[in-house]
């Protein structure tokens, strides 16, 4: 047993402090992203989720420049972007896409400036890679309490918003008739997305946080037929991919002669592989006609003719 374990897990894995911090923060980010991601996908807001990640990278870069905790930078910019995107009143869905695109562009532009200033003022060339693509084994353990607090706040908010959010994701009119303040619920949801994205940004990086937000949720939506199950599955899949990715990255030091592969790459690769497998299985099962889905004989024509 011990030998089998040591084949999969390189020595020192469980004793390593950076691994433990990465596992805790990564796990928290994965749970929050999975739960929030299910709503983001069914609301058709994947692009908005990615936009928040891009804009929050400007906050992360700013925090780096000021030498403060990057999580607070990601949080601040993310929440600001979520609020401004939701408060712009739009009449058509295409207009919403446009607003999202403009905000994303502006945010990334600011990120480019701040990252450039990082390089020129403190010659920390690593900042750009850390902010955009994450650097899980270098996360400071001091961030853990704030990260856990943000995670708990996001999960509690989702718990409170659960039913009205589900209803307004289904159909805004249906929700409005039942007295749901649809716009307010949409704004609160996007703010929670910003919290999830900020957590992911310090783990897998701002750009790759979309993978953690959308991937596990998309896989879960292929498998579950009720909302609570989809949410639970998305969280489990996210955690499994994150911890699997951490293990893979840690082990990769062995095969690559001490360079190792980035954790972010390993996590995203696992999510992508899982999605392809699940989607392929589902597609395969759809090619075979299901017994319950036989087309009904159309009797209408015969009766009108007669």
């Amino acid at each position, binding site marked *: 047993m011990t030998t089998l374990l040591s084949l999969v897990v390189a020595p020192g894995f469980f004793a390593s402090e950076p691994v433990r911090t990465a596992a805790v923060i990564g796990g928290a980010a994965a749970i929050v992203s999975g739960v929030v991601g*299910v709503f983001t*996908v*069914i609301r058709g807001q994947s692009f908005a989720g990615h936009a928040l990640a891009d804009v929050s990278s400007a906050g992360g870069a700013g925090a780096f420049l000021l030498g403060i905790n990057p999580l607070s930078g990601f949080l601040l910019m993310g929440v600001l972007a979520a609020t401004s995107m939701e408060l712009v009143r739009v009449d058509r869905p295409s207009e919403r896409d446009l607003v999202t695109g403009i905000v994303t562009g502006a945010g990334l532009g600011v990120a480019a400036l701040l990252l450039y200033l990082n390089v020129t003022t403190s010659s920390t060339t690593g900042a750009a890679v850390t902010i955009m693509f994450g650097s899980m084994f270098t996360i400071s353990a001091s961030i853990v309490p704030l990260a856990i607090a943000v995670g708990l706040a996001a999960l509690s908010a989702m*718990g*409170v*918003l*659960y*039913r*009205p959010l*589900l*209803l307004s994701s*289904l*159909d805004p*009119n*249906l*929700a*409005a*008739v*039942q*007295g*749901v303040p649809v716009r307010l619920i949409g704004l609160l949801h996007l703010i929670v997305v910003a919290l999830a994205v900020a957590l992911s940004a310090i783990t897998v990086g701002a750009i790759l946080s979309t993978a953690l937000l959308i991937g596990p949720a998309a896989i*879960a*939506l*292929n498998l*579950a*037929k*009720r*909302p*609570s*199950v*989809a949410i639970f599955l998305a969280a489990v899949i996210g955690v499994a991919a994150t911890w699997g990715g951490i293990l893979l990255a840690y082990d990769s030091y062995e095969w690559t002669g001490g360079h190792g592969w980035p954790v972010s790459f390993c996590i995203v690769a696992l999510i992508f592989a899982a999605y392809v497998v699940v989607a392929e299985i589902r597609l395969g099962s759809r090619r075979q006609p299901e017994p*319950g*889905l036989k087309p*009904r004989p*159309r*009797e*209408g024509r015969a*009766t*009108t003719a007669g």
Partner: protein
Amino acid sequence: MLTRSEVLAVRQASVSLSGHPILKDIDFALNAGEFCGLIGANGSGKTTLLRTVLGFVMPTSGSVTMEAGGRASIGYVPQKFILDPYMPMRARDLVALGLDGNRLGVPLPSRGRRRKVDEMLEAVEATPFADQRIGSLSGGQQQRVLIAHALIRRPRLLLLDEPLANLDIRSVAGIVALLRRVSRELQTTVLLSAHDMNPLLSVMDRIVYLAHGRAATGAIDAVVRTEVLSRLYGYHIDVVRVHGRVLVVAAEGEGDAQTAIQRDPVHVAQVP
């Protein structure tokens, strides 16, 4: 003002959307338990009238009065409801959201809640597919689930926006029979919009016939007549009854009658 038996009164209501007049001087009232068809071609203002009753649109003049309770006592089935096949929701989940979807917090499993949902699913004959994903159901089955969602809070008024569109003829007959039955059993007033009145002829107590933003209202036999509809359309219209079906036909060459007919594909399709 509502009289004792009235659930909804629309009085001389006119509606404009971004400056364009859509509805003009609409006037009708519905009594408790009545079944009313809101009939008109596409673009005649049916959806706007329903949205006005729902309070999403304010009349520019006139009034819309609901029985005490307002919007909270309306059940609503929206038009062109697109149910994504990936939506992780069973028929029973959607019906349960009708009961308490506006409440905050995660629903706790409760026997009373489950029983109410089961009863409602049974009432609309949706029990056999209660545990299937809504996105995998046929159009007629989805309508039944949406009707259950709207009825579970026992509204006084049920509004349905084109619930019969895109259904095969057998499903249309099934949904109409279901609505007639539940409206009688629950004493719910039904206001249903449709571009074809024929499937509803046997169940309507009252008709609101919309054309060019104006309405003729009353009993079917009082409204669906050559002289009434001709006055409403502003040119000569023939109302023809064939095998118990009603055809509304514009005379050839009458003003913009040709365009009216073209904008109203169903009436053309009625011609055997």
